[in-house]
């Protein structure tokens, strides 16, 4: 949404963007940490300032993508939410994020 991209209509555009090196990853698979990530970070920081125990999480394909999970760990979200078959991947990736960012 932050990009103004519709997942259902941009498959071919994203493919070409990746080929041309404009996108490193498909932003619907792996969270764009530079732009969208900044919005997430802002939400976390401002949210916690107002209410320190605010419940924050992310849902969608990103919740099962190891790179995005690492980002969510670093930025201080409480949970990720992903499709059932990605849950074990997310559990492992969350542990790896914790080890990597110790």
């Amino acid at each position, binding site marked *: 949404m932050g990009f103004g991209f519709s997942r259902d209509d941009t498959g071919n555009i994203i493919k070409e963007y990746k080929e041309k090196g404009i996108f490193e990853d498909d932003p619907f698979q792996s969270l764009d940490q530079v732009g969208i990530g900044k919005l997430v970070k802002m939400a976390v920081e401002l949210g916690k300032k107002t209410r320190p125990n605010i419940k924050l999480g992310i849902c969608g394909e990103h919740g099962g993508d190891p790179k995005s999970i690492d980002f969510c760990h670093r930025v201080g979200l409480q949970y990720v*939410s992903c499709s059932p078959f990605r849950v074990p991947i997310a*559990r492992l990736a969350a542990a790896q994020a914790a*080890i990597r960012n110790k």
Partner: protein
Amino acid sequence: MKKFVYSFNEGSKDMRDLLGGKGANLAEMTKIGLPVPFGFTVTTEACTRYYDEGETIGQDIVDDIYVKLADLENVAGKKFGDAANPLLVSVRSGAKISMPGMMDTILNLGLNDETVEGLSALTENPRFAYDSYRRFMQMFGDVVMGISKSKYDVIFDGQKDKKGVLFDVDLDVDDLKEIIVGYKALYKEEIGKDFPQDPKEQLMEAVKAVFRSWNTDRAILYRQLNEIPDDIGTAVNVQSMVFGNMGDTSGTGVAFTRSPVNGEKAIFGEFLVNAQGEDVVAGIRTPQPIAEMAQAFPAVYDDFVKIANTLEDHYKDMQDMEFTVERGKLYMLQTRNGKRTAPSAVKIAVDMVGEGLISKEDAVMRIEPGQIDQLLHPMFDARELEAAEKLTKGLPASPGAACGQIYFNAADAEAAVANGEKTILVRLETSPEDLAGMVAAEGILTARGGMTSHAAVVARGMGKCCVSGCSEIKVDEEGKTLGIGDYVFKEGDFISLNGTTGDVIKGEVKTVPPELSGDFGTIMEWADEIRTLKVRTNADNPRDAKQAVVFGAQGIGLCRTEHMFFEEERIPAIRRMIMADTVEERREALSFLLPYQKGDFKGIYEAMEERPVTIRLLDPPLHEFIPHTDEELRELAEQIGKPYEKLAKKAEELHEFNPMLGHRGCRLAVTYPEIAEMQAEAIIMAAIEVRKEKGYDIVPEIMVPLVGMVTELADVKKTVVETISRVFEREGVEFPYLVGTMI
């Protein structure tokens, strides 16, 4: 001054960026005193400079190479191009991240019309010498100069025909000399120059060819698939040759310190007597299991086992090794952390913690999260499998279950997958050109090639089911048929493959969910101990919710409510609601939906027990629910007793140019609060009933979708809170609940 070339005794395993994986490990093995033929590595930075400087090698780098070459000559006690005692080298690529089968190798470099005589005298084996020379000419022409391999084959096979023999070994020295004459003529015809006789020229051309091979299409595709950056370049390893094809006291092999298939702790590998390394990897000859090496060369095998153990203790990880035995002496040519299947990765990690080699954290880091997928996917249903007809057995090259329609080349398989079919790629043997087809297929079946063939290695890397070396099948790639016993399967016929046992099975076999306990359970337990981030699931029905709980989900992070509206008996009610003229009419339609929604939520609460569940209020624009054709709209008009024209007008009103940015999300709840009221009541009533019936302490979480402003949220929240307060009062209960949003 920057150093672009390192001898093997100048590097270490920590220099992968500069020396590439292969070079760094050759240096490390040299450092810890293992028998490694001496050599040197041209760095990845030299490759980067090669591309920066318009695909040329700078003179300073050339000079560096010659200095290290002189060192190599001293250590080997042989001279490059020396007619009496020639130094021969192999030239191999080696990037930081291993790219199996992607880059090209040149062996026996240094041979020319003079040195071949020297080699012949030294080995007292002229046939061997001339065979090495013609192999080198062929590899050089093919790999370095890009002359089609088939043109060499024509000359080679022509000589066999002329002589009336079937096998390569039946050609004698004179035949080989004739072939060499033919190869020289071919080279001159194709390149316009004579085949280079100067070994230094051969070497520089080979180094350039390795650098060029970094940018072949198949290397680029492999990097894309594995997310390897394009700009890190490859190193070049130049190493003194050792010969595994010097007769029956020589041989070559590849082996793993533990099984890359299931992780079992035992040397796993393959071996060929009297062969060069490429023969094993390319799957040209089907090798013997490594255990037979213990019988053929007991003393060498003992040495090898010791070295394997040393390497595993040193690297603290399972090693994938290449070695050669030259006249009874063992040489190590490569070691690296072995690629492995997910079951193998999990078992090795858990075992190594038990053995005190690594920590729990190390074990958790060792598992590739993407790889776990393999463990979660179904296996064959045991009963169906028993009933199915097993046709034949190949090598269990990469585990898992696959069934699909057979296709005989990568392009056909890809096209079929694009058409929505599930496919099995059937090939005599695979090569890097088949990669895209292998990616598309459910499984891969090959007639030739061992457990370390291209098909096997690549399939294991991708976590794809593969049966290789299935020698009883007859694959006609041209005619597109697969013969097994009395059966002949045509393109598009179904077969099933069991990559864990090697079975090839007739027809489609049903699959069952995987086993999640054992070593996998242990690793996941450790992961749960370590992580701080919670993991929830997206689920909007009890089946998905239950599956997610089995997989360890700690709650539902997103339960969409729109899918529930599409079910057959509900869609008329939602359409009636959308087409309503008055609030009362809308409420009436919604009241019909309420029990259904409550039932949905009860099922999900029950599946999740006391785990938190976040339910999102209706998000998509309403026109997604109304019919799209005139005919359907007329039917609807009849169904709800409203004039068609009115409905058509309404449908047109609902049409949006930008539905993603249109009347959706919280905007629905703001303009039609009745929908949010109904959903809030269903969410709370479901919680009340499940709390009562099951005793679960449920704290519902209600998500207001797509909020832009706090005033929007406040408006919808007011609707939700007032509804819930009313329900609490009516039912005489109260418990905590949360209202939040999605931004």
